[in-house]
């Protein structure tokens, strides 16, 4: 039976959601953090999207958010010229790291001992979280504000992106190893440790590069400007979203567009696969996070696969025949009605 994707909408934010990150898989499942211009990053259970808590303390838009591997710590980057480190179990603020300008990106090392930050002041900073009083190590070289900075190659190297350049740095020597120049603004960057792959988006392009050499592997063109893309952990699929509010799913090997989904009511700013690859989350200008199934119809998290014979009829919509309606129009109708399909549960907007 053909099943249609039902995205799960996570409400709570009041302004655009600009960044999101998953933790690794922990004994308590995996977790999802979202950065929002409302200045209140939120932690959720990754598989269900259930809200766990809100990190309160920033005095400006939060541009970047991340979790450490075991989801015990969170870090956020904000427009109030600070990065903060939080206890992700209690929600308490652990550290405020003062910067000289807006902070855009934060990333923990695998062992959670160091935090990498980057922002409008064009400097990369490395904080030793065990020495909160010590000054951070600084790496200069970027010529415009840093949008994203990530640890790579088992934390021995750093990847960072400013407006039109992606640079690779050596952590030990703090020197630039290589750089890539683009003629368009780089909108996002994702690093996949398995296989050392770097996913970069700019314009309508989704490009894959070696994270070791920065050499290009391949690239796809999307029908619209793409703001973010994510590669499936098993490297089967790529999902991407951007200015046309749609999520695109591609076959990573062939580059074929497999599906595209409507749901968001504004441009998509960020999209990431969960650590188990079962779902992907998207954050949008419309102030929501949505969770999407990688394999539509699988019973997972809050999605319940009901076989036709088990179907009590409660969830089934009346079957109407539209003999003269074109297929695309039917799709339109279907997606416009997509908010009414939770008919078995009264909708509670929190």
């Amino acid at each position: 039976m053909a099943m249609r994707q039902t995205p799960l909408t996570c409400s709570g934010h009041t302004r655009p959601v600009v960044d999101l990150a998953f933790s690794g898989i922990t004994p308590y499942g995996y977790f999802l953090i979202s950065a929002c211009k409302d200045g209140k990053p939120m932690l959720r259970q990754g598989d269900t999207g259930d809200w766990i808590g809100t990190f309160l303390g920033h005095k400006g838009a939060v541009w970047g958010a991340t979790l450490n591997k075991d989801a015990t710590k969170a870090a956020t980057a904000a427009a109030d010229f600070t990065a903060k480190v939080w206890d992700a179990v209690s929600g308490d603020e652990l550290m405020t790291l003062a910067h000289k300008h807006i902070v855009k990106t934060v990333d923990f090392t695998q062992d959670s001992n160091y935090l990498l930050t980057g922002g409008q002041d064009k400097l990369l900073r490395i904080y030793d979280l065990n020495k909160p009083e010590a000054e951070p190590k600084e790496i200069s070289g970027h010529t415009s504000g840093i949008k994203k900075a990530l640890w790579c190659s088992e934390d021995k190297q750093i990847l960072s992106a400013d407006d039109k350049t992606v640079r690779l740095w050596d952590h030990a020597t703090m020197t630039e190893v290589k750089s890539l120049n683009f003629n368009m603004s780089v909108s996002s960057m994702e690093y996949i440790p398995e296989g050392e792959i770097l996913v970069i988006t700019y314009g309508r392009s989704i490009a894959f590069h070696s994270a070791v050499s920065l050499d290009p592997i391949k690239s796809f063109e999307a029908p619209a400007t793409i703001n973010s893309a994510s590669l499936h952990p098993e490297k089967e699929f790529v999902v991407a979203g951007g200015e046309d509010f749609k999520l695109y799913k591609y076959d990573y090997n062939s580059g074929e567009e497999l599906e595209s989904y409507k749901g968001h009511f504004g441009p998509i700013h960020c999209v990431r696969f969960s650590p188990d690859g079962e779902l992907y989350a998207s954050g949008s200008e419309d102030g929501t996070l949505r969770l999407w199934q990688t394999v539509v119809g699988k019973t997972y998290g809050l999605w319940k696969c009901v076989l036709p014979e088990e179907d009590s009829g409660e969830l089934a919509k009346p079957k109407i025949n539209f003999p003269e309606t074109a297929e695309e129009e039917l799709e339109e109708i279907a997606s416009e009605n997509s908010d009414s399909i939770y008919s078995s549960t009264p909708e509670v907007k929190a």
Partner: protein
Amino acid sequence: MQTPLATPVPVLRLPRGPDGSNRGFAPDGRRAPPKPEVPEPPESRESWEQQARASLRERYLRSLLAMVGRPVCFTLHEGVQVIAHFGATDLDVANFYVSQLQTPIGIQAEALLRCSDIISYTFKP
């Protein structure tokens, strides 16, 4: 590609959102650290014994929880040792459900161990 009139995947409910009244991170949530226990000075021998039993019981139950899915070495009567992946126990802790039970006559894919036969068990957390 999506097929028109395809059935939408049913959902059990919507993700829970913030409740608006607090910042969350329930202090009694699943990941909250166990609170340090401040035991009251025991008033009588009876309450002292009850507390001892309670804490032993708690430790035992926590050990069961911790060894789910791990290889565990069970010491049975007459010094028999078997290794198996611990799965679960029944409500009254009378039987252990294990898998990959390594016995002298071969590996049992799934098995039940009678708790009364087990003298001790060890596992690495």
